[in-house]
């Protein structure tokens, strides 16, 4: 349902997460904040975790940038890179699923929509997954489900805390019911991680909706979110249609979810590393020296 909104709104050029636009006259050296229209030096924007220093707008970042932001330098060891998607249903709408996959792979340089691995954060070891919204809207198919499940299982057996950075429109329709079942599969792995009394924290980023919200995004021991991230189960337009009443201004934002008890803490991106380190320390994590690559 929410994926529906995402696509619908994408056509109108909204929702997807406003991203700073390069200004024409400066060959990408400068860009303009979509929120406050302030023009900033691109390098400065990146140095500030892609957060506008003027208004605090969090620009969308990809999985690589996300991992760079979280992991200690050169400590992130990727896992299960050998897994790639298939087309189990032979799905074709206006275009074939295989074509869409190839296009997304070429665009992102990824095989599918999540990167998983082990790293340290300020010396604390962490199992980390980062979803990539740029890959078919971060949708969850078999590869995303399998990679996250393997990471959770590894975290359980290595006794590691776990962070999953969510950015997803939900299940990937092109893999039909196999996508839906990834929700159950990951939840089952998380049950074992929890049973082993290990810490799991999802970080909900813009947007986290649909099947991801109805599974691992909401199963954290602690649930973290980025400021103003859109988080919800059903799409806003679907709700408006059934309701025919106005929705609150901040409906389905991180702040709205916190107000209603579903988010523990909203963490500005610039504070993410120290906050994660602090939370791990407070839960008894011990620093280790990871072999530098």
């Amino acid at each position, binding site marked *: *349902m929410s994926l529906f909104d995402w696509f619908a709104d994408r056509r109108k050029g909204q929702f997807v997460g406003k991203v700073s636009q390069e200004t024409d006259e400066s060959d990408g050296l400068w860009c303009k904040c979509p929120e406050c229209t302030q023009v900033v030096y691109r390098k400065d924007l990146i140095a500030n975790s892609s957060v506008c220093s003027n208004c605090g707008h969090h620009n969308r970042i990809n999985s690589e940038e996300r991992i760079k932001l979280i992991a200690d330098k050169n400590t992130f060891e990727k896992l299960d890179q050998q897994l790639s998607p298939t087309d189990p249903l032979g799905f074709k709408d206006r275009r074939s699923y295989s074509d869409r996959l190839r296009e997304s792979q070429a665009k992102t340089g990824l095989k599918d929509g999540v990167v998983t691995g082990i790293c340290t954060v300020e010396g604390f070891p962490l199992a980390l997954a980062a979803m990539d919204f740029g890959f078919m809207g971060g949708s969850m198919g078999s590869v995303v489900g399998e990679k996250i499940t393997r990471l959770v299982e590894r975290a359980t057996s290595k006794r590691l805390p776990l962070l999953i950075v969510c950015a997803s429109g939900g299940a990937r329709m092109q893999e039909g*019911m196999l996508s*839906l079942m990834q929700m159950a599969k990951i939840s089952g792995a998380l049950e074992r991680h929890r049973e082993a009394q290990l810490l799991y924290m999802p970080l909900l980023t813009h947007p986290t909706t649909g099947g991801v919200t109805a599974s691992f995004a909401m199963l954290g021991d602690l649930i973290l979110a980025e400021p103003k991230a859109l988080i919800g189960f*059903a799409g806003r337009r679907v709700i408006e249609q059934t309701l025919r009443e106005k929705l609150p201004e901040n409906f389905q934002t991180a702040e709205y979810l916190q107000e209603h008890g579903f988010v523990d803490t909203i963490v500005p991106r610039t504070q993410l590393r120290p906050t994660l380190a602090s939370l791990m320390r407070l839960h008894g994590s011990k620093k280790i020296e990871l072999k530098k690559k």
Partner: protein
Amino acid sequence: MARKYLLDFEKPLVELEKQIEQIRELARDSEVDVSQQLLQLETLAARRREEIFQALTPAQKIQVARHPHRPSTLDFIQMFCEEWIELHGDRNGNDDQALIGGIGLIGERSVMLIGQQKGRDTKENVARNFGMATPGGYRKALRLMNHADRFNLPILTFIDTPGAYAGLLAEEQGQGEAIAVNLREMFRLRVPVIATVIGEGGSGGALGIGVADRLLMFEHSVYTVASPEACASILWRDAGKAPEAAAALKITGPDLLSLGVVDEVLPEPAGGNNWAPLKAGEVLREALERHLGQLLRLSEDQLREARYKKFRSMGRVLDSNSSEIGIGS
């Protein structure tokens, strides 16, 4: 028999049924022996019905799955249970009417029965919210499942929903969280869980009571990751392409059997379960008792391990290390 709800592809049957009805009336009012003629026509009608229902497209199956007279959760419970007590409430301020549950006796065995409940008519459907449960419904279901776990009652769930309710209050109360917690907690249950898609299984709202040791499905039931209407609007950018989407999404029992999602497809009488509800009840009861018999032979640990493995193996990925398409790992 006058038909109140006629599906478009059933129209060829109407003329025959009308003729049969007319001849019956004639026979009632006169002494003419029409039994031979009746038998012929009835045989013909039965054969036609069978032909039509054997050739249903996925989109037509959705119509059968949503038929207002298709036996519902409460219908099946009434057919199965000599004793039945409905239990209410999530102990958190809500008692959802779209997702019901209670304890019943099937044969000699006490079981927990939980399922989405649609209405037969508009008025009842409004009360039942068209079978679309709120977070309170999923939390009630979990409470009842935990109760069953404590008292060692096998759990039977009945899936029949267009999806979880999409509404302001549902979001406010954490629809995503409620479903998510069910998915996780159902892996902990130490009692057998059998889920059956009796009508339509709509996405996460269906899965919220669907993490089971066995997943059964009726022949004309459907289970979808997203409604074909929504899928068509998104991917085809044309809601009118819903029939194409229904076919592409692989939502029928046989499709899901071959994808390893479903364990067994239960046959329906020609005309669908709404045509012969009692027969549907017999078929489902036999299957449930058979699977339950198998599951009850497993220890708690075996049961949980098998449930984990079942879902663990779902999905298709290409692993270039083993260079073959694996199901799961």
